């Protein structure tokens, strides 16, 4: 009911659905609907194999230019792919950070050597990446980074010391890109460098962070003189901020748009459970379901407007508020799911449908925090979207 097809790209969609139907089966069957947000630490080894399966089918990096091993598909088809992938219950993509973030960054800023070394294993699903931005003292405010990189004058290597946090899936990844302070005494956005580092080396320790839903998909990563090779700096020393911000811009939410299919499934599941346990008779529940449905339709059309505006230089108004909207919508859906479950929301029953709603309830709490908290989003919307005065920095 809530999911919806478009008549465009029907052939392509059938192709995707057909391939998934054929391959997301057998030994990959347990992966269906797994590994999503809040469940990111499920079946890491099997999901790596799945990434290779996708690569063999040429379904990895479909938006990348053909010269880098992609298919160069236009945005609408990329979205169609993500939607069909979500509809089929395709598992959370371990290759996402490589495909969506570091790959495009290297295409734009990397040396020829970096492109040749790092892009093919991403396309092939053989190397997995983690992101090293946030630090315990610098969450929303990345300019406060303290992790430092010092160049060894003899070898040209960078020695990195410090701590990163919220690195999703670092424990199952191979490489990490790190934003570190390479100029002694620099502050704010100055003096940062963007480094590529292997995660499995003596100077790096990875500790899992347990989440409120019990999962462990985030980590703290401790660097104690860990090494990045001289040729593994992206951009010039001191230009790290520009590279890092550009990277955040590359991921313009195309994979996020696919998540609407997941949202629709979740809403369907809420309705299903509400009908089964009788809470659908409560008018306030019915009203919230209707509001949720209306919000999801609006979200879909909002995304369509964003796509229409793709290629425009500035982020359009509808795009500025998108993350804020979907994250709050989703958090509200999680609360609705818990209220529909009632007392059962508190009980671990082993019923996979109920567990999915419990995870939705708990993990959607993170949606309004990661990838820029709602508070940061609202600052940006007010300042860039409405031209209101900038929030002053403190002096502390």
């Amino acid at each position: 009911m809530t999911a919806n097809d478009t008549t465009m790209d029907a052939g392509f969609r059938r192709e995707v659905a057909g391939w998934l139907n054929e391959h997301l089966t057998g030994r990959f069957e347990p992966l269906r609907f797994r590994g999503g947000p809040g469940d990111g630490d499920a079946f890491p080894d099997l999901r790596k194999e799945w990434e290779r399966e996708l690569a063999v089918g040429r379904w990895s990096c479909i938006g990348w230019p053909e010269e880098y091993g992609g298919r160069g598909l236009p945005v609408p088809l990329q979205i169609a792919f993500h939607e069909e992938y979500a509809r089929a219950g395709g598992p959370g993509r371990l290759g996402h950070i490589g495909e969506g973030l570091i790959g495009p960054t290297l295409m734009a800023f990397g040396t020829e050597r970096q492109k040749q070394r790092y892009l093919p294993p991403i396309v092939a699903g053989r190397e997995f990446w983690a992101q090293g931005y946030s630090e315990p003292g610098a969450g929303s405010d990345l300019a406060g980074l303290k992790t430092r990189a010092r160049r060894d004058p003899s070898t040209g290597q960078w020695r990195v010391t410090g701590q990163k946090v919220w690195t999703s899936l670092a424990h199952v990844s191979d490489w990490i890109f790190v934003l570190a302070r390479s100029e002694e005494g620099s502050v704010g956005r100055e003096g940062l460098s963007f480094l590529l580092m292997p995660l499995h080396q003596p100077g790096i320790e990875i500790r899992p962070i347990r989440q409120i839903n019990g999962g462990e998909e985030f980590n703290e990563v401790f660097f104690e003189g860990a090494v990045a090779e001289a040729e593994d700096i992206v951009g010039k020393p001191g230009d790290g901020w520009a590279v890092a911000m550009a990277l955040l811009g590359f991921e313009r939410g195309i994979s996020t748009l696919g998540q609407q299919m997941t949202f629709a499934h979740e809403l369907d599941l809420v309705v299903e459970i509400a009908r089964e346990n009788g809470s659908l008779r409560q008018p306030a529940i019915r009203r919230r379901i209707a509001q949720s449905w209306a919000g999801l339709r609006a979200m879909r059309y909002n995304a369509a407007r964003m796509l229409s505006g793709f290629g425009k230089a500035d982020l359009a108004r509808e795009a500025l508020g998108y993350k804020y909207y979907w994250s709050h919508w989703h958090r509200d859906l999680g609360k609705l799911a818990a209220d529909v479950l009632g007392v059962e929301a508190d009980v671990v029953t082993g019923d996979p449908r109920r567990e999915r709603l419990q995870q939705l309830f708990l993990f959607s709490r993170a949606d309004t925090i990661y990838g820029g908290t709602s508070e940061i989003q609202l600052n940006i919307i007010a300042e860039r979207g409405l031209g209101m005065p900038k929030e002053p920095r403190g002096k502390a």
Partner: protein
Amino acid sequence: MNLDLTSEQEMIREAAVGFLTERAGPAALRRAAEAGSGYDRALWDAIGRELGWCALAVPEEYGGMAMGAFDMALLAERMGQALLASPFFATVCLAAPLLVHAGTAGAKETYLPAIAAGELEATVGLSALGGVWWPDAGAVAAGVTARPDGAGFRLDGRLPHVPDGATAGLILVPARIEGGGIGVFAVTPAASGLTVRPLKTIDVSRPLADIRLDGVAVGAEALVSDPALVAAGLARALDEAALALAAEQVGVAQGALDGTLAYIAERVQFGRAIASFQAIKHRCAELMVRIEVARSAVMGAARLAASGEDPQAAALEISAARALATDAAFLAAQEAIQLHGGVGFTWEYDPHLYFKRAQASGAWLGGADDHLDRIAAVVCPA
């Protein structure tokens, strides 16, 4: 779904912005209200006869441009933003679609060309302006009875709140026909037995009239609806009207927010522009998000409605758009008053004009609660 605007649509929008900025807006509304006419005759003539906007919703064979629901939504949004006082909504968004979707060929030939040319002001007399047309469109005809009388009919009943009812040259009246079925009847203000009482409204941009029909005798030709089309046609026409109303409300919300932003950027308290306070910034940002989302809902529903592909799906999306736009308009107007501070509840400043329009429009053609009920009935039948 492609929500890009064509260059023609961009043109319409820009022309509308230019014209409405110059000729409409809060100051023009105040002048029209003080003149007592309810709307500015010259402005209406310019819209209907010079700009040709009245032709938008009318099929080409009746002198129209057949631009459809999407273009209409673009225009209606700008009209809402400008707080336009005009019989446009009643004539073009309410009466014309009813003739288009439910009318007989003869009725269309009689009335649509005049509407398209901006020469006829029309309206629809619903039994309850706030009522709903689902699950059974007959509900909107419940207040008037048509009794066959010779070759014609006699109409009896009351239409308590008819938009522009005191100025319209044509009143389309849905009625229950004794002996079965519903029909839409064309009634002129001069008809004997018709009493039209203009109402004093709080929202000065939206005139209403209380109309009584006491044995109004009409000929057979006054039955303007095609019996095969009337139920579905009424529903579709009212859906399209609700969509236009939702689009207007997005505009009302945008107008209220824009005015607020301009005010608080200048106004200083505690040595700072009010706009520099973070709590205020966040509230304005939240409004912007709500407005953009409501706008997206309107655009998407309008595209689907314009395609004509799936009227039932479109109807549900119109209800979604309407619920979102109603809330966005009210909240933006509420915040406009609040963030203006003391002057926000004076007659002299503009927030109250948006506020009253937001509340009044929100009650027309089903309130937000009704539209959510309609969605729930389909999405999660009990």
